[in-house]
């Protein structure tokens, strides 16, 4: 996991090095003399080979230093720490909202399969998956901020300004969660243990929520975990629309101004975070599903399970 993240940094660094665009020119302006730019390159160490700079980046990183921004002259790490809470807050809020909406709808649709309520909720969620998130956000802004004037269109001044970004992000997640929940519930609901539970006279509510849903949780957890990780990096759009000073918009502006230390720092941070979240998802599997836990103990079945889980993870990524 860690070597992979360092590999990503190397790829980004090589890409940055071999594409047009020069931070020194950005910093000094168009009128800068040739020798000034060269001087600046020396100061930024851009005249050194990529591998040297890469080695230095990794060395500094191991000492807890992500470098200093070319433009603001402030430490990158400090900026990330300053901005990350906003991203984390909006992503967490929308994820929680999506779970509160999506999972019940999925369970409801699965238990009422093929009736009009099922069709309606599935079609609605397919609509929500297919529409661009930012488009929905713009419509919400138009209705609630510009026409009705109930909520502020941007900024983070009051709790009210968090409503629009949260809802606009949550709707897409909720829809994909509902779809996933429905299909994995449908699979579970036909299992023998559900028949057993019903036969012994268990209340329908408990059969659905305690027996079936618990078993249907694995793919749902995958979706929740990977979406959470994805959106920590992918909240860029919501952040730019609603002017939230989060990590996404920070990375975005660093990319346009080619602020190398900031780009590398935030890509490193987000990639590490993403990997850690995926690792946590794997650990949570074991906590929810005793079958998976036992596979770690019995190494004989490991071969089989790793093939299966590779297929499952490829499935979710596609």
């Amino acid at each position, binding site marked *: 996991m860690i070597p992979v993240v360092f590999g990503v940094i190397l790829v980004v660094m090589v890409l940055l090095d071999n594409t047009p665009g020069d931070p020194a020119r950005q910093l000094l302006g168009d009128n800068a003399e040739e020798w000034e730019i060269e001087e600046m390159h020396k100061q930024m160490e851009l005249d050194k080979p990529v591998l040297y700079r890469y080695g230095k980046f990794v060395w500094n990183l191991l000492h807890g230093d992500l470098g200093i921004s070319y433009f603001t002259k402030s430490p990158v790490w400090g900026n990330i720490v300053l901005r990350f809470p906003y991203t984390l807050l909006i992503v967490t809020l929308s994820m929680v909202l999506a779970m509160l909406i999506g999972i019940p709808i999925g369970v409801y649709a699965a238990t009422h399969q093929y009736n009009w309520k099922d069709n309606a909720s599935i079609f609605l969620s397919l609509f929500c998956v297919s529409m*661009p998130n930012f488009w929905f956000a*713009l419509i919400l802004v138009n209705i609630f901020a510009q026409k009705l004037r109930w909520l502020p269109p941007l900024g983070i001044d009051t709790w009210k300004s968090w409503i629009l970004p949260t809802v606009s992000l949550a709707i897409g997640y909720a829809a994909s969660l509902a779809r996933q929940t429905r299909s994995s519930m449908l699979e579970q609901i036909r299992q023998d243990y559900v028949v057993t539970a019903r036969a012994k006279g268990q209340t329908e509510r408990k059969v659905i929520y305690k027996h079936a849903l618990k078993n249907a949780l694995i793919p749902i957890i995958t979706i929740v975990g990977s979406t959470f990780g994805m959106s920590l990096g992918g909240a860029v759009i919501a952040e*730019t629309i609603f002017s939230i000073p989060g990590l996404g918009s920070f990375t975005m502006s660093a990319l346009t101004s080619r602020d190398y230390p900031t780009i590398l720092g935030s890509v490193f941070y987000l990639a590490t975070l993403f990997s850690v979240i995926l690792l946590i998802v794997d650990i949570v599997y074991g906590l929810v599903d005793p079958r998976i836990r036992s596979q770690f103990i019995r190494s004989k079945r490991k071969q089989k399970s790793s093939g299966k889980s590779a297929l499952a993870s490829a499935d979710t990524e596609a």
Partner: protein
Amino acid sequence: MKKKKNRGHSAEVWYRLKKNKLAVVGMIVIIIVILVAVLAPVLAPYSYDKQDLMHTFAKPSAEHLLGTDKFGRDNLSRLIYGARSSLSMGLGATVLSCIFGLTLGAIAGYFGGVVDNIIMRFCDLFSCVPYLLMCVVISAILGPSLMNAIIAMSLAHIPGSARLLRASILSVRDMEYIEAAKAIDSPHAHTILKHVIPNAIAPSIVSITMGIGGCILSGATLSFVGLGAQPPLAEWGCMLSEGRSLMRDHMELVLLPGIAIMITVLAFNLFGDGLRDALDPRLKN
């Protein structure tokens, strides 16, 4: 019943696909959108960048069926031309990522061992960055343009399609017919193309179909933040970002391209869903 038994595999899939009404609707919409994109110069009443500064923000009328935008450009024509750029983004990125992803996946799955390890570690490298961040970073580094956005999206998609094909090849690799092919000394390339891939491609086909819709969405997203198609090119995401600053008074400039994106992506999703059900052997009969 007799008839059913005589049908080949692809005919069987086609038969089941035809029975799924939503999938058929999706397919028809996809065909229409493709036709519109191909025939754009014929269908569009005006050019996408023909300005008419006397008639800006015109209401819908006989000359401009959907009105005009801030430069007096015909909205309908821009939507029609937009189908071109948006579809080429979706299709281009998917085709590119398929060429590389499927090749890598097939090689990794078939040969296994060291080759597999190297290819998969390479894929890990690209999949440990969140998808959208990856697209944004690569297309911003390469410089904003339609082509670079396509490259960025296909790069971000390669690991997914490679993994998926590899995983399904792993389940086919040890079958007897592969062993038989090896026994009669069939060349590797022949075995892979004729025996392995046809039997392992089903999950990939579904994900490719869905992937086109997904790429249209993320392509629109990239254009929206200014990293994809550049104005004055008509692209749905680009049109959205142009309409954004004017939406207080002219909401239709935001609504129209958004609806176009949604219908297209929805069609690909419906078709992909139907295809998955049709290809799933567990649902036979």
